[in-house]
């Protein structure tokens, strides 16, 4: 049940010569330097890299939560400035409003965009069902487990029907079992919703399981970022030999084989 019927594929991102640095304790610290990248409409791009390589910074620039020092990001040919309705972000923490029920939280995104409550809630119910929480619409966040809360966060992002879904280590805080289930859920949602997905993770298996392409940000600034195509049929099987080979290739990239 695809909720979003895009006739024209949108959600094309092009990153041009992007640079970003922070000043920490008086020292200028370059996080991203001269990054160029095209993200194809509807693809799933996973950003991997050692900590400090600027994965999250890149995602926050894409989201419009940070402004670049140099270069820029275009989405469907329009230059990004600030947050926009074409994108939705899923954070590492679910970031649910504790005073709203699951339904209220999921409808929140549409409501703040001016949708009337009844329509926002109707749409929210569909998305809650999509992430498998149909029976929990009236529960409060404190009554949910970590995995359930994160599903609510995902449902909230889906209600606004973004062209681009930005995920910042969304499964990083979950236990191993829940994580695998949620990876399968994400793969399913991505294919059903026909959305461009950009996801940051430090979990290489997760990257191979979900990605069309994996972007590896270099630890030393100025070196080129690497793009690795994951050419595997879906649904992917973690134990398959080619999957394992990709894993070894990625590990080698990090000097960890």
């Amino acid at each position, binding site marked *: 049940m695809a909720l979003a019927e895009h006739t024209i594929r949108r959600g094309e991102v092009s990153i041009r010569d992007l640079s970003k640095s922070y000043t920490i304790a008086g020292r200028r610290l370059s996080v991203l330097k001269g990054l160029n990248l095209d993200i194809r409409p509807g693809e799933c791009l996973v950003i991997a890299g050692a900590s400090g390589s600027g994965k999250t910074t890149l995602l926050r620039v894409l*989201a419009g*939560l940070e402004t670049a020092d140099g270069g820029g990001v275009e989405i469907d040919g329009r230059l990004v400035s600030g*947050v*926009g*309705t074409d*994108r*939705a*972000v899923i*954070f590492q*923490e679910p*970031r649910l*409003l*504790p*005073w*709203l029920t699951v339904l209220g939280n999921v409808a*929140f*995104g549409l*409501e*703040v*965009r001016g949708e009337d409550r009844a329509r926002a809630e109707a749409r929210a119910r569909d998305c809650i069902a999509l992430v498998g929480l149909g029976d929990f619409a009236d529960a*409060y*966040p*404190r009554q949910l487990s970590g995995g359930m809360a994160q599903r609510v966060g995902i449902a909230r992002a889906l209600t*606004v029907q973004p062209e681009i879904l930005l995920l910042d280590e969304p499964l990083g805080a979950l236990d191993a079992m829940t994580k695998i289930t949620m990876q399968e859920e994400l793969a399913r949602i991505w294919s059903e919703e026909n959305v461009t997905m950009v996801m940051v993770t430090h979990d290489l298996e997760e990257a191979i399981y979900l990605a069309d392409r994996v972007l590896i940000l270099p630890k030393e600034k100025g070196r080129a970022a690497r793009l690795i195509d994951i050419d595997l049929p879906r649904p992917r099987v973690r134990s398959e030999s080619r999957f394992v080979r990709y894993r070894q290739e990625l590990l080698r990239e990090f000097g960890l084989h």
Partner: protein
Amino acid sequence: MSLQQIERPVVFGAGGGPNLGTETARRGGQAAGRFLSRYGVLLGFLAFWQVSSRAGWINPAVFPPIDMIVAALWKGIAGGALLDDIAISLQRSGTAFVAAVLVAIPLGLFMGQVRAVETALDPILQLFRQTSALALYPVFILLLGLGETSKIFVIFWATLFPLLLNTISGVKEVDPKLIEMARVYGASRLTVFRRVVLPGAVPSIFVGLRLSATTALLLLIASEMIGANKGVGFQVMNAQYNFQIPLMFAAIMLLAGLGLISNYLLVTLQRRLCRWSDAAI
């Protein structure tokens, strides 16, 4: 959280079944047990007071037995002598409390949002807060006279600060990650305030309200003891001057009762508004 849910009052005779009688008895026993574990010490204290006073272990002229205090209280209320005092006391503390709410909550919400205002006003607020309202009472009397205005003002002054400071900290302590989340969905500043900051600050505002309500009663008594000819606080002093000790204790009990009632009302309101929070007690 779960304890509170378990401790919801038991409905006797609800449902049915073959063991209804024993079940009811068992539940009754549990309810009695809970009641005793909660109020046993209080009842013991009152009983000890009653017995010691009657037996002469303590001076009954200073600590009259409980039944005499209750009788004095009943006479005061039923005879109408204390009703005027209660009315005027409620009016004084109520007016001041409402005024403090109307000033402190909007001001606190504003100050918590705008860092520059908060930074500029914080030192003077801290100074005012640390200056005892009672120490300032003579100043208020000089300015406003010995009538109702100065009494209400001193209560207002003292109740303002706990509420204001708690409102400010409530606003400031709203999780910035939630604010960022709302911004990502395109919420305007006003929407962020209305949908995220305000509800997030409510529990802290209630802490302030409860502190302020307690302070209001405290300052009410003090101001009525200093220059009043009516009011429950005045009755405490007056009864002591006239050596009507049971009446004095009756007035003290009345004040304790007012405190308990106001706290109960606020807690009930808080539970209603903050059902989502497990911190809501």
